[in-house]
């Protein structure tokens, strides 16, 4: 590019080109390997399937089935309800604990580096390992957890086998597995708070709780936004852990069924119980897409509005 041409090109279009250059690689890769395949799959929700191939175009028949027709309707709302429960449980347990641990780590007490390494250690494990481990630890007959309860004379339940405890047990394993991640995101946010601010507050006699809620909390708003949105999306894509700790059917009695399992089971079938219906499965996925997308947009608007620039 010569100096002549550079002077001629308007600053606006050069800026646009620069922005386009920044956006293009990610956009092209996403288009090719995510958006386009997803769109082709989602449009299948308008077809009635003959075996594994699309047959007639049936407009909203598949949507009508999963939203309004028994017994699919019940399964849909049951799974949706579990996703919502999982989201709130993770927000309180996983992210709540993560906030406290991050704050404790921020104090840089002796050994804080070791704790920082340890709290994140389970995150590097695969869901397969976590599922196997916790199945063994929660085993109704041979498990460590019930053995420990036995010491106090308590007969522990069949954690994963009974409806009241199954979902909670899997949520717990998820907290164990992933807690390190929000801890680090929140810690990274906290470390950007100027030390003088915290010091000043402390000199004014503010206790830890006041500092955490009144100073740290508002100042880590961007981190909270990230953690909340990722938890929300993660809760609605929750799949591997329930699949491997319970099964594809959401056992026992659909008490661990969530939307992603339900949609996968519907679209691809399961060797031990069902057959495939890609149309109905895609309809479920479209609904998930719309629901998660809409809530994310609204939530982001709200969360962003409470962020303040540091």
């Amino acid at each position: 590019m010569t100096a002549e041409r550079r002077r001629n090109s308007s600053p606006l279009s050069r800026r646009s080109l620069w922005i386009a250059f920044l956006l293009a690689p990610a956009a092209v890769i996403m288009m090719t390997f995510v958006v386009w395949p997803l769109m082709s799959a989602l449009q299948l929700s308008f077809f009635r399937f003959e075996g594994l191939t699309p047959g007639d175009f049936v407009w909203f028949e598949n949507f009508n089935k999963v939203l309004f027709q028994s017994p699919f309707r019940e399964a849909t709302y049951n799974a949706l309800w579990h996703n919502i429960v999982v989201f709130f449980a993770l927000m309180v347990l996983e992210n709540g604990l993560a906030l406290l641990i991050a704050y404790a780590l921020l104090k840089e007490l002796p050994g804080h580096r070791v704790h920082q390494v340890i709290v994140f250690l389970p995150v590097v494990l695969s869901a397969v390992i976590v599922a196997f481990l916790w199945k063994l630890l929660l085993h109704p007959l041979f498990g460590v957890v019930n053995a420990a309860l036995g010491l106090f004379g308590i007969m522990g339940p069949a954690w994963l086998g009974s409806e009241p405890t199954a979902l909670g047990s899997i949520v717990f394993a998820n907290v164990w597995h992933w807690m390190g991640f929000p801890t680090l995101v929140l810690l990274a946010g906290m470390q950007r708070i100027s030390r003088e601010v915290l010091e000043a507050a402390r000199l004014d006699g503010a206790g830890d709780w006041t500092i955490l809620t009144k100073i740290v909390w508002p100042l880590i708003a961007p981190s909270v936004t990230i953690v909340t949105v990722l938890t929300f999306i993660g809760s609605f894509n929750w799949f591997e852990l329930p699949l491997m700790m319970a099964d594809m059917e959401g056992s026992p009695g659909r008490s661990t069924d969530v939307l992603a399992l339900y949609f996968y089971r519907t679209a691809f079938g399961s060797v031990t119980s069902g057959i495939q219906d890609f149309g109905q499965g895609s309809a479920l996925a479209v609904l998930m897409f719309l629901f998660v997308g809409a809530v994310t947009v609204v939530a982001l608007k709200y969360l962003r509005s409470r962020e303040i620039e540091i």
Partner: protein
Amino acid sequence: MTDITSTSPAQSSSRPSTYKGEGLKNGAIQALLWLNAVIMLYPLFVMVMSSFKSNAEIFSSPLALPQGLNFANLEKVWSETNFLQYMGNSLLVTTASVALILVVSTMAAYAIARYEFRHSGLWLMFFLSGMTVPLKLAIIPLFLQLNALNLLNTYAGLILVYTAMGIPSAVFIMTGFLRALPKELEESARIDGANELVIMWQVMLPLARPAMVIVAIQNAVPIWNDFFFPLILITSDSLKTLPQGLTVFMGEFVTDWGVLFTGLTLAALPITLLYILLSRQFIAGLTQGAIK
């Protein structure tokens, strides 16, 4: 006065507390952190122990230490799989994917976070939309797409799929962090006549190191551990990733929990060791953005 302003523990402990409860409270916090550490580590200990046990031992005495170091399970895994080859493949695929995710996502996030342009919000939503449904749904069209591009059964195919899957959350996290960076630095650099590339590369991105570390680790872990996409997209044994190779291998021993745990431990070992080895850099990177 607390140790919050200091970075060295020795220095802080020599400093007197401003009020009496401080030491006690810090002790309680320490105790809770250690309790947490035990809860985090105990299951891992069980996993490693189980890999030295026979099937009967796991069920009859799950809590006990193994009866001696039984390496039979380890030998079985080692001799019947191309363990090193799989591990090399996993390293290559994971490193390349994470690098690519970081580069393209940071670029896109930088555009969205630092410039005001029409539809920038829509762009963010476009990227976010990739996270809302599991890509597993689209496995058949994705497979056809890769087939059309001649990317089936190649490293490149797998890397591009992982990159595409990683972009949404990476763009989201990076946008969040980049947006929170102060405008003044950028403005003053601009006034000094620095061009946009220099501002991005030399001024802004160094401040975003913690976010990059988070993005890297958040993507590296699931990519390293994934076996679904390799199972479907990779068929040559020489290209198989570690979880894929071990999943197939472990399938031949479905009821042998000892072998299963050995396989799982071995699959987890490389990334766990890598994490522990790099944890210093990892944490340093994470605290880089700290404003002291």
